[in-house]
């Protein structure tokens, strides 16, 4: 895919916006590529992690927010830990995911991942913690194609007590709910 950067992108405030939301100064990145070199999921990404930072640096908003990379990032924080310039790359990915959703730019190829995120958060919102079975239920309802995926491990997990049929609420469930309200 050919990317064209013009004066418009270069003059835009994308980097500043990202910095305001995340506190991360992407100008610090000097593109050494160490984040990419250590990324365990880089092989699946459409753009390398350092390229995502580069997109932010040069104002390529569309490229950054529509990339699959930001959704494939597993937030393992290897990049952040190893960055010589102390750029919090994994945290940056978080902010880019938020912006991507807000602007409706999330890559359709990664719909599974966005739906999974939603189901995860819904479960936490409802119970104050994850209820694996109910979360999976919601996810698989919304993404029917995944209905049979990983089904084989279900009985094993059940037998080992890793899944319970009833959700267990935490004590401070209401407090968690309030966090969600505030974050809206």
């Amino acid at each position, binding site marked *: 895919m050919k*990317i064209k950067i013009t004066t418009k992108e270069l003059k835009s405030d994308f980097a500043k916006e990202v910095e305001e939301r995340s506190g991360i100064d992407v100008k610090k990145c000097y*593109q050494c590529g160490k984040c990419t070199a250590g990324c365990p999921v880089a092989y699946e990404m459409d753009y390398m992690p350092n390229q995502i930072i580069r997109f932010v640096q040069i104002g390529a908003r569309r490229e950054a927010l529509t990339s699959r990379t930001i959704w494939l990032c597993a937030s393992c924080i290897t990049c952040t830990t190893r960055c010589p310039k102390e750029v919090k790359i994994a945290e940056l990915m978080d902010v880019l995911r938020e912006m991507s959703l807000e602007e409706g730019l999330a890559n359709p190829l990664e719909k599974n991942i966005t739906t999974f995120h939603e189901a995860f958060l819904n479960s936490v919102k409802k119970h104050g913690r994850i209820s694996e079975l109910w979360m999976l239920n919601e996810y698989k309802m919304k993404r029917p194609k995944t209905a049979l995926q990983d089904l084989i491990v279900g009985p094993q997990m059940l037998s080992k007590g890793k899944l319970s049929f009833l959700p267990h609420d935490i004590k401070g469930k209401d407090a968690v709910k309030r966090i969600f309200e505030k974050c809206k």
Partner: protein
Amino acid sequence: MGNKKIGVFVCHCGTNISATVDVEKVAEETKKNNPGVSYTTTYKYMCSDPGQKLLRDKIKEEGLDGVVVAACSPKMHEHTFRNAAIKTGLNPYHVEISNIREQCSWVHPEIPVGTEKSTDLVRMMTEKVRKDKSLNAIKVPVTKRALVIGGGIAGIQAALDIADGGHEVIMVEREASIGGHMAQLSETFPTLDCSQCIMTPKMVEAAQNDNITMHTWSEIESVDGYIGNFTVKIRKKARSVDLDLCTGCSSCWQVCPCSKIKSEFDMGLGNRTAIYIPFPQAIPSKPVIDRENCILFKDARKKNIKPNDSKVCRKCIDACPIAPVKAIDYNQEDEIIEVKVGAIIVATGYKELEDGLYGEYGGGKYEDVITGLQFERLASASGPTEGVIKRPSDGKEPEIVVFIQCVGSRDPAKGCSYCSKTCCMYTAKHTMLYKHKVHHGHAFVFYIDIRCAGKGYEEFSQRAIEEEGATYLRGRVSRVYKKGEKLVVLGADTLTGSVVEIEADMVVLASAMKAQDDAMEIAQKLSIQYDKDKFLSEIHPKLKPVESSSAGIFLAGTCQGPKDIPETVAQAGAAASKVLALLSSDELEREPVVARVDRQLPPVFSTCIGCFYCQKVCPYSAIESEDIKARDGSVIKTVARVNEGLCQGCGLCAATCRSKSIELDGFNDEQIYAEINAVEFN
């Protein structure tokens, strides 16, 4: 000397030699098969203190009068072993090195081959030693005065250092003022201190130093002689102004009507008059008349009359308040002066790449595409805009400036394969200067690599990006073209694999540092070497970085290769210390390995036939002609003679001589044939 007692010392050099040469066998064979070799031994490290002691002891004990050390290249330790011999009273030129390391053990992987070849090499050298004659060091007197060519920061620093060492310095600068390129700069990296503020005190110091004689508006005409004894002719170009009378009052250039001449100092961005000083802090602060552009001189040329007879314009001379004799002299002519010096420092500097070379960037075509030095003048408080960043075309403040690095550098297709070294740093500085003056402006830099190796340099370039907000894009620009008022820059960002198109208001080219146009000419005048890029060559890139290929001539600054101010100053200091060392002694000792043209008794006088082929091939201009005269003064014969001071012992003349009249001391025919025959007959 056919029956010399020769000692052979074979070095193991740790395992460097002994791994592929059976050193014991070499010693044994040498002793057995070479009558006259009275002593052989081997030692682990001959160059070590105990190794040298062994050499000295055996010379005395065995009464040796010839020595062969079979070891590394003579370039490494010939000096060491010859010095050891001197201590025993043996003439050092009876000590020879047989190179069995670089030329044998390192290139042959097997012991039998290495051993056989080493034995051969040692035998060759023993045969040479048999023919060695005692030679004595040549002594040459030293003129305790130095010449510095070039009055930029390198020349000024070198001159000051030599003058502070108590020796006279003659400084020659071809422009009307000293100062060079550094005086043109606005601020300097990585500290951003004003260039003129740190440069002008040095200029004043040089001008006021009693040991320094300055010749501005002057050029080197010719250089003769040799280390310690150079004779230099300096052409003092006609300035049309008497430096002794002129007070630099400015009356003349204020009235000059030719005010539209592009100022060289301002890189063509500003104007000057025909009678002018290049910049306000010029030293000497006395004007020069630009005879090419002055209407009086133009008129005189047209009418073919003496300039003083032209009546077209005499405003400057009329305005000159000096009485009774005016300080301006239209009829002044070039003057040639001759000086004698013992050492020379070449500090002739560089020139910026001409901007017409990059047609694709619109250099020389679009007014708003400027070079790095032009940007320096734009940003300089003493520049044509008094430090306000304005587009040259319409005087508007540029809101988007694109800086293009490596313009001319690292571009073999444009004949410039090297890195100019300073551009990464000065471009980072330019972005800062720009952002300091145009706060809302955008600075974009296209680069291939950012090379900022130096103390505080990396931090400086990162500061340009992180704090000053310059955007760096990794890729060379392909093209710059005009679209309305804007300049469209087509480049790439290879980090994202994208094409980049910027509509800029101004484009600054980080132009390469090139050798001066006449660098070859000065090199030829001085008989020193230059490289493929016409930068003057140092004799050894690591261990002799300021010495030129001619003894007594040293290099400082950018004439030797691109470098920044700190490096230039350091090199100038190094060159000055070499000069001071040279001038500290009354006489110099030279290695007596020089060529000699034979002299015989009358009526032959010399077998030299006077063809002077030797003169043509000598790279050091060491061959002179000598008239052999009869008692009545009539010339009997003109023959060649070698100037011992200049000769470097390369042997070209000896090889070229058609009548076999030239011998190289230490490497004469007899010695060389002895070596060769030692191989042939075994």
